[in-house]
């Protein structure tokens, strides 16, 4: 028993007795830490029982992760270990995720409150996510994080607490202090400000399931290659097929811009790019009239926004820009699928 805490009763529960939270994020935004803080606050600060866990495996920045929090009343045991499919609160940390991950899967109008980190209004967020309906919350977590010198996760924790209707801010503040107090005392005020602002500034709107968008029930995806048709031994014959992946969700707001007029086609950017985004073609340099490899531009499908090319370019031909200010689809130069001819 937690000392001196009167057990809290949950306002709503699912059929197994849990209030459930799912957070959709990418590695590096701190969803895992957010989950830890929420779990600790609920258990240590509020006397609830529960579990907190995440979906990720390897330690990669920029790849999609999910964090789960499952809470129940003190006298109940936590026995289920499976991931959360139909949460009461669904917090989406990173707008761009919606492009490549079915983030709204299992969002049920009337049960799920969806929170999106965005500058959009709740109605715009609904259209952006193609949500069937229900309670939608929006918060500009990136802006608040910058202003408070904290991180997106703190803002989102505050917003989740508000959406839950029962998670106690005092308990959350204590959990934040426990998590960062010793090592990062200097950042404490910013973290607590971000938490509070997330709680206070999230704006909700109840939107009717009016048939504009289809329901998004949770689907347990099964692979198309199974035991009847997968090559034995796990071999992959479609070589290089990772090129079908879209890595743009790894970016967090900045992109390199190619300024063709300043480019000398020296090739250093190509050497500095871990994601092989630069597209080259044999051609004639309009300035020198000489034949040679010409840099055509950037294939943003693969750009994770590391900005190494901007750091390396001596000629100002690659500059940092806010992604929101550009239509990336328009400025992207697609890599050709066919094998390059010999130069």
């Amino acid at each position, binding site marked *: 028993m*937690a000392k001196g805490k009167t057990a809290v009763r949950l306002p709503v529960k699912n059929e197994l007795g849990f209030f459930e939270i799912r957070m959709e994020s990418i590695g590096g935004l701190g969803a895992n830490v957010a989950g830890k803080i929420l779990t*600790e606050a609920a*258990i240590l600060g509020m006397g609830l029982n*529960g*579990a907190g*866990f995440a979906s990720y495996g*390897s*330690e*990669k*920045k*920029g*790849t999609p992760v999910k964090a789960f929090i499952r809470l129940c009343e003190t006298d109940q045991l936590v*026995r*289920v*270990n*499976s*991931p959360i499919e139909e949460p009461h609160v669904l917090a989406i940390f990173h707008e761009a995720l919606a492009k490549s991950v079915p983030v709204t899967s299992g969002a049920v109008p009337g049960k799920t409150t969806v929170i999106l980190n965005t500058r959009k209004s709740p109605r715009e967020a609904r259209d952006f996510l193609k949500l069937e309906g229900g309670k939608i919350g929006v918060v500009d977590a990136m802006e608040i994080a910058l202003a408070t010198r904290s991180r997106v996760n703190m803002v989102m924790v505050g917003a989740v607490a508000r959406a839950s209707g029962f998670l106690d801010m005092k308990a959350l503040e204590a959990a934040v202090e426990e998590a960062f107090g010793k090592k990062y005392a200097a950042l404490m005020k910013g973290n607590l400000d971000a938490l509070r602002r997330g709680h206070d500034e999230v704006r909700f709107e109840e939107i009717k399931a009016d048939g504009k968008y289809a329901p998004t029930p949770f689907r347990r995806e*099964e*692979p*198309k290659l*199974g*035991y*009847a*048709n*997968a090559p034995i*031994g796990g071999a992959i*014959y*479609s*070589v*290089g*097929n*990772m*090129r*079908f*992946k879209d*890595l743009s969700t790894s*970016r967090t707001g900045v992109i390199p811009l190619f300024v063709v007029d300043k480019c000398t086609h020296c*090739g*250093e950017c190509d*050497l500095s*790019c*871990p*994601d*092989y*985004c*630069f597209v080259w073609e044999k051609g004639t340099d309009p300035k020198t009239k000489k034949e040679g*490899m010409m*840099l055509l531009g950037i*294939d943003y*499908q*693969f750009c*994770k*926004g*590391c900005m*190494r090319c*901007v*750091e390396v370019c001596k000629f100002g031909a690659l500059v940092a820009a806010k992604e929101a200010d550009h239509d990336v689809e328009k400025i992207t130069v697609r890599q050709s699928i066919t*094998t*390059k001819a010999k*130069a």
Partner: protein
Amino acid sequence: MAKAAKKADARPAQTIVVQTGNEVAATAAKHVDYHIMGYYPITPSTEIAETLDAMKAEGEHDIRMIPGDGEHGAAGICFGATSAGGRVFNATSANGLLFAFEQLPVQSGTRFPMVFNIVTRSVSGPLDIRGDHSDIMLAMNTGWIILMASDAQAVYDMNVMAPKIGEEMSIRLPVMVAFDGFFTSHQKRRIEVFEDPKTVQNFLGPFVPTVTSVDPRRPVTIGPYMNDPDLINNKKQQADAMVRSHAVIKKVFAEFEALSGRRYEILDLYRMEDAEAALFIVNSAAETAKEAVDALRKEGKKVGLIRPTVIRPFPVEEIREALSKVKGLVVADRQDNYGAYGGAMTIEIKAAIQGVKGNRTMVASRIYGIGGKEFFVEDGVTMLREAVEIAKTGEVKVPYDYLGANAGETAFVPAMAYAPIPEAAVSGFTRVETGADGKMVVRGVNYRALTAREKRIAPGHGACPGCGIFTNLDTFLKGIEGFVTVLFHTGCGMVVTTGFPYTAHKVTYVHNLFQNGAATMSGITEMFEERKKRGEIPKDEKITFIMVTGDGGHDIGIGPSLGAAARGNRFILIEYDNQGYQNTGSQLSFTVPLGHSTSTSNFGPFQHGKSTHHKDTAQIFNAAHIPYVFTASESIPRDLIRKAVKAQKYAEEGLVFGKLISYCPLAWRTEDQLAWPILQAAVDCCFFPLYEIERGITTINYDPEEKGKRVPVGEWLKTMGKTRHMLRTECKPVLDAFQAEVDRRWARLKEMHKNPLL
């Protein structure tokens, strides 16, 4: 299942913590106050050592933490340490357990107790890091007692009890505590732990060795050569001890209940009183499946669940008793004993009930959750319904089957992404000429022209933003002509370029575990030559073989690499040195320099980062007298490409070794875009000198002193979050020692550069 503690004033105080299974295993180890932990990081068990190291940096305990050179080495450290008479702890998973396997019967057969946490995970290959039981079930017959912890509370409790069981004088056997990777190891739960570690230490009492290897006044021979007729008697002693341990476990469970208020039974029986149909299932999935039992009970079905807390010794009597009224039993195994028509538990249970006269229990085996495939309440319901059907009909229609495997969409054909790269398309860019002095001269290193050489790795891989592995590999491959076959050790580079059904490799790629990459590449190159000799492959076919390892892979796997050097196998071995085991969360590798902070060499008031100097792999390979050894940094790409061109040439003679310093913004705690300036600082401070050794003759290719660019190591260290603490006043001795070591190695290298005989 652990029951919540009752408030009883007579019992020692307990406190509630919110920790994962791994964290609470570390908490238990801290409370036990082991003398030594010998370990080697492997997902998902790594966090145990990390947590203990972080606690140590804060002065919370004084357990000596010893990183092994691999799990085999870690197990050896543990064996040696137990023989020297103290309490010893270890943790591993999956292939780590298998790599240590040889040592397991050594530990049990020589009768030295210790505690080994097995955070269960799927055994490779293909490599899968998620949780199943294919590791622990292979360890069933190694002579260790095996306790099963189904949730995080049990992880703590079992870890408190385990030393007491194994150390009992009538037993003296090592003990494993097994719990589910990710499901239990990475799930934060509400756990009760003793407030005062002394409570645990008093419960266990002091460790009393039977023999020790460090008492010269009482000399002893440990581990003699023993053939027939003696070994059988030794094994009889061991087997008897295992049988006796059953009673000891029950006794310790009872003592622990008195201490903690939490009760454990050999079998956790859930709603079995009148059950006619039951499910036998171990660890975390059993807890989930209890919800399934409740669901079917609501329908009026007489179903129950059996979960063992001990699988060695196997609870034969308890199982017979529990099954006496059960007509239909489904045994769920999270692994398969291929060809045995059931998993390990199925076979053990069938053997156990075989001894019951008039046995009425019919058994079906279901393999589930392989490779960490999620287990849902509905899966439990499916298996229980099968058990009900068996009980009703008295017939097992499908004795052995996989639950959750899918046939796939038979019409589905994966889209092709690239046509194979023609040899001509990647040839004719770079070449080697012989200069007037007889030395190799490299031609064609033109960055712009080389953008036309098709990349052998496709975009779309999942590395972190700014990762140095892929700039290193592509820059190196810009200097390689023609066909290439690559082999990657386990590591970041491997994990992010393949994830079924995707691959980023456009050329042929092979993975093997990092104990053994170079040996595997030796086999490939030898077979290629042999098949050419036999006319099965055209005699003029040329392939350049390139093996890629991290610096971590060259801790655990350097043996086979030196083997390839000794055999003169003709391939290029590239080590991308990102200074740590970054794929598993940046634990220390032996290449990590003094004072650097990693997740197993934390900086804190009681520990100032890594305590030893960095391993110099390039010089190790120099001592192997192979044709070509080089170091390179992508911050000077021309030098790197030039060395690739030479490497391809020298690999026609024998093994080539190249070490590339590799930027890792995640673990180094730096901004993504700063690769070149930070790498260049490592070069300019002479920590990472750029040089090559051609047939024994050393040449420094870039001398920062000559160029007037040399800086103190502090100029490099201040650029990284993992090293900034080294510039603090309290770290001055560490900084000075590191600078002195860098100076000494650089001075030595300069002498080698001057003198062709060195």
